């Protein structure tokens, strides 16, 4: 554990040396380390992590819609087989004008991720060479994964729905209301 700690410190030192404005977040007791950086620095930082520091495996990349703050958060998770540490690189892009730089020359599979974000979130990647459609086909309307797109309402007005049975009423309210109540004996066996 202590060894992992100094590994993290070392990584933070090296990153701060070349990216002074990277904000680190080192409050996890497992092998995880976070950095928050401006979106224009992300390609160079990922390249630095991959080429210089041995984080050669892109584990995951994700996009989160923070509707209230009017921003998209892009997360890149890289993994170093040597240090056995995951590094999360967070960045924020403006929600109204989400533009990011294409990075699939660093990891070719980023091309797939960027296609997905472009289609489902509307995040534009400058210089991305790929067919327009990835998952959806002839999609009209806003990018569906944005939080302001209501999928239930869309499905309600677009598709046929078979009317449900009368005796199938919604019991979620009842379940939500019962809290800390005594569990009957027959149920104790399975749901303790």
């Amino acid at each position, binding site marked *: 554990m202590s060894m992992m700690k100094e590994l993290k410190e070392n990584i933070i030192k090296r990153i701060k040396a070349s990216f002074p404005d990277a904000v680190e977040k080192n409050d996890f007791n497992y092998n995880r380390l976070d950095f928050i950086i401006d979106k224009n620095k992300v390609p160079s930082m990922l390249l630095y992590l991959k080429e210089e520091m041995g984080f050669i495996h892109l584990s995951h990349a994700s996009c989160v819609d923070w509707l209230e703050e009017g921003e998209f958060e892009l997360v890149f998770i890289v993994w170093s087989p040597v240090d056995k540490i995951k590094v999360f690189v967070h960045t924020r892009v403006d929600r109204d004008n989400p533009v990011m730089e294409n990075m699939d020359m660093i990891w070719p599979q980023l091309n797939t991720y960027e296609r997905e974000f472009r289609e489902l979130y509307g995040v534009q990647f400058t210089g991305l060479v790929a067919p327009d459609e990835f998952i*959806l*086909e*002839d999609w*009209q309307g806003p990018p*569906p994964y944005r939080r302001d*797109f209501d*999928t*239930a309402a*869309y*499905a309600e007005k*677009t*598709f*046929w*729905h*078979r009317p*449900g049975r009368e005796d199938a009423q919604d019991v979620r309210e009842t379940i939500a209301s019962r809290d800390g109540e005594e569990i009957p004996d027959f149920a104790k066996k399975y749901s303790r």
Partner: protein
Amino acid sequence: MINDKNSQKIVDIIQNWARKHSIWVLAYGTGCGAIEIPPTMTSRYDAERLGVRGAATPRQADVLLITGYLTVKTLKRVIRVYEQMQDPKYVIGFGSCTINGGMYYDSYNTIKVLDKYLPVDVYINGCMPRPEAVLSGFAQLQKRIAEGRATGARHYKENLEWYRANQKKIIPNWIMPEYNW
């Protein structure tokens, strides 16, 4: 000497018997239901003893097995595949999500009620239906064929405008991709 009507009736009976005992299912796993098709076809639940076997292309298939939910993108292909098949042809809706959307009731990309877009002869409910359920569904289809009640294809021909309207309602671009299979 029997007259034409009776002979036609006899021929129908023989034909229905043959169709009942030789059901070729198109090999098109449209959804996650395709995972229970291999166990159904392989040992323990051996569907071939009922005459059920896979067909490679739509031209040779009798049954279109919709294994699960259909996304809009897949529905387009499925309609094309269904119209490539030769009469008599049957459709089996496989899984709850073909009946009422199942757990995808609020998904923006899957259709909820299959029989608004394709004529379904037999529904198999459950998610995932067990191989026994699949076999019983095939048996049900055999029963309907033997009784001459599996007339989904004719219904589709007769109410083509209605089906087309429903299909075009959710498929904005009706131009098929330039497939040539």
